[in-house]
């Protein structure tokens, strides 16, 4: 769970570092130096700012982002739950703590067409595995479950991660 943090106000160099690394870090022995060179600043400056943005939560982590399909997780389901709003916090925290849930959010509903307000992403090697996880969550939700659904992804149409346009453009 993400603890509340102090506000963080990036300056223009922070945003240029984001733009320079959003496609990934250079695969060269001194990647931060390469980024710094592109931006015309000192490598120490880039590293100091990355460390600060990590500490501030502006960077969640630095590392490899796997394509979970390629790792054998072929059954990827978005489980969605209609629970009373006043129960969403407690249930969301318990569901988010399960070892097989990769993301858990409360989201806005669209009354009449989309009643679900709690979303938990589940990943398994098979659909049976994912459905067993849905039953595990259903046991936690208990009588707060006013309806749920499981939406498997059937195709990745795009997965690039974020690509912010340079604000100077």
């Amino acid at each position: 769970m993400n603890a509340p943090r102090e506000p963080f106000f990036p300056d223009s160099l922070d945003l240029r570092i984001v733009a320079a690394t959003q496609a990934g870090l250079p695969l060269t022995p001194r990647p931060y130096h390469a980024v710094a060179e592109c931006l015309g600043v000192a490598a120490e400056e880039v590293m100091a700012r990355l460390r600060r943005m990590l500490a501030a939560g502006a960077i969640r982590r630095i590392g490899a982002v796997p394509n979970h399909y390629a790792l054998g997780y072929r059954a990827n389901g978005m489980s969605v739950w209609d629970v009373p709003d006043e129960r969403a916090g407690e249930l969301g925290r318990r569901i988010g703590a399960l070892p097989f849930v990769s993301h858990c959010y409360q989201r806005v509903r669209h009354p009449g067409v989309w009643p679900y307000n709690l979303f938990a992403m589940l990943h398994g090697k098979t659909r049976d595995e994912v459905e067993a996880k849905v039953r595990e969550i259903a046991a936690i939700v208990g009588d707060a479950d006013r309806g749920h659904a499981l939406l498997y992804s059937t195709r990745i149409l795009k997965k690039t991660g974020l690509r912010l346009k340079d604000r100077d453009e």
Partner: protein
Amino acid sequence: MDDLDRAIVNALQGGFPVTERPYRDAAVQLGIGEDELIEHLRRMLASQVLTRFGPLWQIERIGGAYALAAMKVPAAQLDEVAGKINALAEVAHNYERDHEFNLWFVLATASPDAINTAAARIERETGHRVYLMPKVEEYFVGLEFSA
């Protein structure tokens, strides 16, 4: 993927060092050489085992915004509509799902206002309604996958 690829994926989904020679420092932890680590990362990126390698931004912390969006699109139009959606740089990922709401994508923008602008543009260009489902609360993000 070979055993070393798996070890790299398991060890490096976070915590990549911010140092002068980070690949060398991470490679030491894995008991391999710097060149070897870089070469394996390069191959896994090329074969799309990895979608990227680098910082994972939480853009709300730098003034930006995210929103999940869903659409109901007739199957015959799905590829055409997905093509129009994917052409927008604001679309970070887009999945087809087996539901009446069959297109699910994430908008990531430099400012909160730009979410509505992007959604309106998609509605205009595709002729289908975009249902924005921004988060109310985040409970957990960030499971690491074991390879």
